[in-house]
């Protein structure tokens, strides 16, 4: 079963063996980059179809069902359509910035996949000192791209979308990084591969020690994925492109394949940040139970990614969009203080390593549950439930 686990690594080595030694470092990079460029955009294509079908089911309609078997080739039709559409640039737009913006939005997520371990020994770029930092660094470049798109279009809706996006991305980055920091604190490493390997301890004979199975890990995962949804502009935090309010937000003035590039960049960003969440909290490519170790590691990673995507689609079909002031208050008055409390709990977990497990759990859970209910109550008091009355 080991060969199935390492099948892609072995295939790459076999390919490299055919080449002269001098070419091998370059060829190795090209193969890794090629694999990333092939897998994740294909995953994007499949996710769009699955999302449209799942949302359709939730809204009592069939979704795409014409192209290919059960409509699963819809993404190809969409791609060809967007490639053949006319590329319209508004006359008032800033041509250079307008052209560069889609690139600045798409490139960072692709770079981020380089440090993401998608399986045992399957990471394109191993940065033992700064892996997580690299990931966060490329993530920040997206903000500039979003701003460039919104500003250069010279359209009020675009500008509004860009302003919303900037405020949202800046605010949700803090809880995102702080909740990731708890994991780094306890693992003592910034390398994403090492972070996964630290979670491989087996507890009680069968349970693998994912970080989510600790009080700080469970709270951290919730905080992380909430902030991740906002960072990826996903519903219910999709205010920067709220269709019902500001057309398509910062990419209103894009057409053809540039529009598709924004779409692609958004989903790649979602994959990347979900992959980071899986690595930090959900054990990366590790199985949940030690007796499931025979399943190939890359299957675990992509299985977890797929499960997360399904949850995100479900959330999109369920939750209404937040209002702008609610969005900002939620970040600053709930997520940020909770992630600070979580850091404290993570520190306590580290220093009470000799205590009985039940006591540690009780202490951590109590320390988290108290502020959690307090902040949630305060937040709810500020936003009383509105009752809408419709004229019938």
């Amino acid at each position, binding site marked *: 079963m080991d060969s199935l686990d390492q099948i892609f690594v072995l295939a790459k080595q076999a390919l490299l063996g055919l080449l002269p030694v001098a070419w091998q470092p370059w060829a190795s990079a090209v193969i890794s980059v090629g694999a990333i460029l092939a897998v994740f955009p294909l995953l994007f294509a499949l996710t769009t179809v699955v999302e449209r079908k799942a949302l359709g089911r939730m809204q009592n309609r069939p979704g795409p069902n014409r192209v290919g078997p059960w409509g699963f080739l819809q993404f190809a039709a969409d791609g060809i359509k967007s490639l053949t559409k006319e590329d319209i640039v508004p006359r008032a737009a800033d041509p250079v910035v307008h052209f560069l913006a889609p690139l600045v939005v798409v490139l960072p997520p692709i770079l981020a996949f380089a440090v993401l371990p998608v399986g045992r020994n399957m990471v394109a770029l191993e940065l033992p*000192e*700064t892996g997580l*930092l690299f990931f966060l660094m490329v*993530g920040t*470049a997206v903000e*500039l791209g979003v701003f460039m798109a919104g*500003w250069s279009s010279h359209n009020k809706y675009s*500008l509004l979308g860009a302003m919303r996006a900037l*405020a949202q991305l800046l605010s949700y*980055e803090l809880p995102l990084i702080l909740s990731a920091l708890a994991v780094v604190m306890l693992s003592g490493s910034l390398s994403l591969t090492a972070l996964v390997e630290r979670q491989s301890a087996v507890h009680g004979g069968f349970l693998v020690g994912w970080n989510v199975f600790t009080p700080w890990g469970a709270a951290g995962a919730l905080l992380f994925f909430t902030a991740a949804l906002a960072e990826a502009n996903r519903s219910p935090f999709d205010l920067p492109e709220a269709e019902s309010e500001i057309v398509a937000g910062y990419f209103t003035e894009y057409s053809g394949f540039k529009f598709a590039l924004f779409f692609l960049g958004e989903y790649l960003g979602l994959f990347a940040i979900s992959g980071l969440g899986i690595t930090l909290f959900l054990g990366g490519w590790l199985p949940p139970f030690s007796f499931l170790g025979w399943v190939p590691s890359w299957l675990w990673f992509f299985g977890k990614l797929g499960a997360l995507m399904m949850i995100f689609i479900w959330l999109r079909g369920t939750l209404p969009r937040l209002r702008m002031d609610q969005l900002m208050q939620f970040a600053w008055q709930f997520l940020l203080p909770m992630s600070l409390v979580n850091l404290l709990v993570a520190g306590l977990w580290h220093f009470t390593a000799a205590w009985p497990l039940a006591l540690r759990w009780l202490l951590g859970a109590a320390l988290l549950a108290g502020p959690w209910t307090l902040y949630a109550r305060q937040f709810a008091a500020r936003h009383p439930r509105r009752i809408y009355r419709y004229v019938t």
Partner: protein
Amino acid sequence: MTLPFALLAGLILGGAIAAVSARNRVHSGLFLAASLVGLALVFLRLGAEFLGFIQILVYVGAVAVLIVFAILLTRDADSPRERIANAPVSGILIALALFALLAWGVLLWNPGPPPAAIPALPVKALGDRLLRDYVLPLQAVGLLLTAALIGAAVIALPPPRPGAPDAGEPKR
């Protein structure tokens, strides 16, 4: 001077010159971001991985974004600037004086012979120094930034309206 360094130097200097001479304020901000990316790449070429990534994270991810955000919030962000400099002669003189001062400092500095091997500095050691040996200066900087934040928030609060008994809660 190697070719990659020349390219990076061109990016940094070109970006900086374009940032101060661009007619459009937003373009200035974007050129500044490009220049800062070039600086981070120089750090990476010198093997200072951590410093290079932090440079992009802080300066491009936070400072440049805040600069363009602030430009957008000003009233006529889109209208091009009329004149680049109000007083070109004194500006050039001040720039030359500053350059002379910096050049003097650089020329005075004697780095000594280059080390035989670049000392490896793990990020862990950096963190140890920062949070163990220099924890007091770090806390002082944190306090300063917190004070600045509170000051900014106080300035941004709307002035209390006459007649209102307590203007504690800002009106949204």
